[in-house]
């Protein structure tokens, strides 16, 4: 039997996040598996919607946590020490990446981040993750248990199973109070219009080929018509054409929209790492040999200045 501890995560509303439901699918895909979910705060209301065998609650993330989750790290590490799971699964979100890495080093466990596959088909656990900016995949065996795994967003479908029979809920007190050494004195919100990039069903993204900041207003109009958000390559952000908060890629945001429209983006692997889990990539680029066409499902080889206006007009008509 393989025992899995799944570290659940809440979304902004306090509900179970989509990425956690994806992690449930990943865990349930293992053979002969026993899944325990650990959740911060109380599990009222949603234990019954988690298709796991058991739910353990730990203390809630305190407000004012600076995103390093000292208390969660301490609690999860203690839970691992007391229950010895074979596999610990988290999402590769900010929360999951940080808690996962900290816990792994604290309990001296193997750590595999950003995985897209997990299997125990041949009796031992293996994980697969993209390396070299997504241009290759590496499959790893685990030399010692437990292994701490974070999953790439969108690599698994969210579980729609209900927790039936309803999982048993149990509280866990690690007896550890994490010392708060870092304090947040202020939070500055930057004005953001429209849909969050990470949640958008449509992303219209621009790169170096746009040649300047002005074309981003056209991309913004297109994104608005589609009800989506605007993304950008690192080159465009570094050039100052658009704010870094729009950056998609290895050092930016990971997006997985239904449609990712890449305009004037060559598709370097570092960029593709942030958008390759999109359902369909649509490329407009004048260089037919650029990498983006290897990843795209639809494309036009041509000058965006000529292609985009008619594309935009046609989209607007279709959406009217």
């Amino acid at each position, binding site marked *: 039997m393989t025992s899995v501890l799944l570290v659940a995560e809440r979304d902004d509303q306090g509900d179970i996040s989509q990425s956690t439901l994806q992690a449930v699918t990943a865990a349930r895909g293992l053979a002969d598996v026993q899944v325990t979910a650990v959740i911060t705060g109380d599990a009222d209301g949603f234990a019954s919607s988690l298709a796991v065998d058991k739910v353990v609650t730990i203390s809630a993330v305190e407000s004012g946590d600076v995103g390093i989750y000292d208390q969660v790290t301490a609690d999860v590490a203690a839970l691992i020490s007391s229950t010895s799971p074979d596999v610990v699964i988290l999402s590769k979100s900010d929360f999951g990446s940080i808690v996962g890495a900290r816990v792994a*080093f604290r309990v001296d466990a193997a750590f595999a981040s950003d995985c897209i596959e997990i299997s125990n088909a041949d009796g031992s656990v293996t994980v697969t993750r993209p390396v070299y900016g997504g241009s290759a995949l590496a499959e790893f065996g685990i030399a010692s248990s437990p292994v701490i795994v974070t999953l790439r967003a969108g690599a698994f479908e969210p579980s729609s199973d209900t927790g039936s029979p309803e999982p048993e809920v149990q509280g866990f007190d690690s007896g550890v109070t994490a010392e708060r050494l870092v304090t947040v004195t202020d939070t500055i919100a930057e004005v953001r219009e429209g849909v969050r990039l990470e949640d958008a069903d449509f992303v219209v993204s621009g790169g170096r080929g746009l040649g300047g900041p002005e074309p981003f207003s056209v991309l913004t109009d297109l994104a608005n018509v589609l009800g989506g958000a605007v993304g950008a390559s690192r080159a465009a952000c570094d050039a100052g054409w658009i704010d870094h908060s729009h950056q998609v890629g290895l050092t930016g945001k990971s997006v997985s929209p239904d449609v990712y429209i890449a305009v004037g983006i060559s598709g370097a692997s570092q960029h593709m790492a942030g958008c390759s889990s999109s359902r369909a990539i649509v490329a407009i680029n004048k260089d037919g040999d650029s990498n983006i066409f290897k990843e795209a499902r639809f494309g036009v080889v041509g000058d965006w200045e000529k292609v985009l206006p008619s594309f935009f007009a046609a989209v607007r008509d279709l959406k009217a």
Partner: protein
Amino acid sequence: MVNGFDLNAVEAGLQLRDAGADVEITVLSVGSDFIMDAMKKPLAMGADRLVLVDDSGLDRIDSAVTVKVLAAAIEKDGPFDLILGGRQASDWDQAHVMLGLAEILGLPLVSVVQKLELDGDSVALQRVIPDGYQVITAPVPSVLTITNELGEPRYPNLRGIMQASRKKPEIFSLADLGLSSDDLAPKLELKKLYVPESNRQVELIEGEDEADSGKKLALRLREEKLI
């Protein structure tokens, strides 16, 4: 300062100095067969020291082992007031080296820092969050990961390059750090490394001219119920 390739972290250290702080910047990296010209770039930018853990045993190590070696080197060569690193290693996409260092050294950590300012025994930081940033006070010493929002790493000037060429790296072996090959055993075993076959075949839309292609692209996406 760790991970010699991470010039954002070097830039962050230099910005502290530009702001008037009396800082000594040490660049630390682990590996084997270093290409010295590349390793000296941070010195040319203005860093003071280059410390390398250079050992043939470090030829092929995973990031968890890298963390152990870095931590041992920091404990041997330190103490340091701030330990700065990049947001992500550039080759294997492992963002957790700095988190691991903070755990092993038992120091507080602040990630995705876009601005930093030394203030006596503490450091004032801006940490990027999805919708803006947090203003944070962290104690010294702390571990910080620096994001590219901090600004482009500066180019070395001629004087910097000349000074760097005269500096010699200080080199530790694993034995110097009290580590043996047993400490380097990886917890993950690489079984297979392969290039995924892309199952995506691009369908190129060609119209009578480029404008027509744009229109046909929209119609094709509608046909596929994508828009």
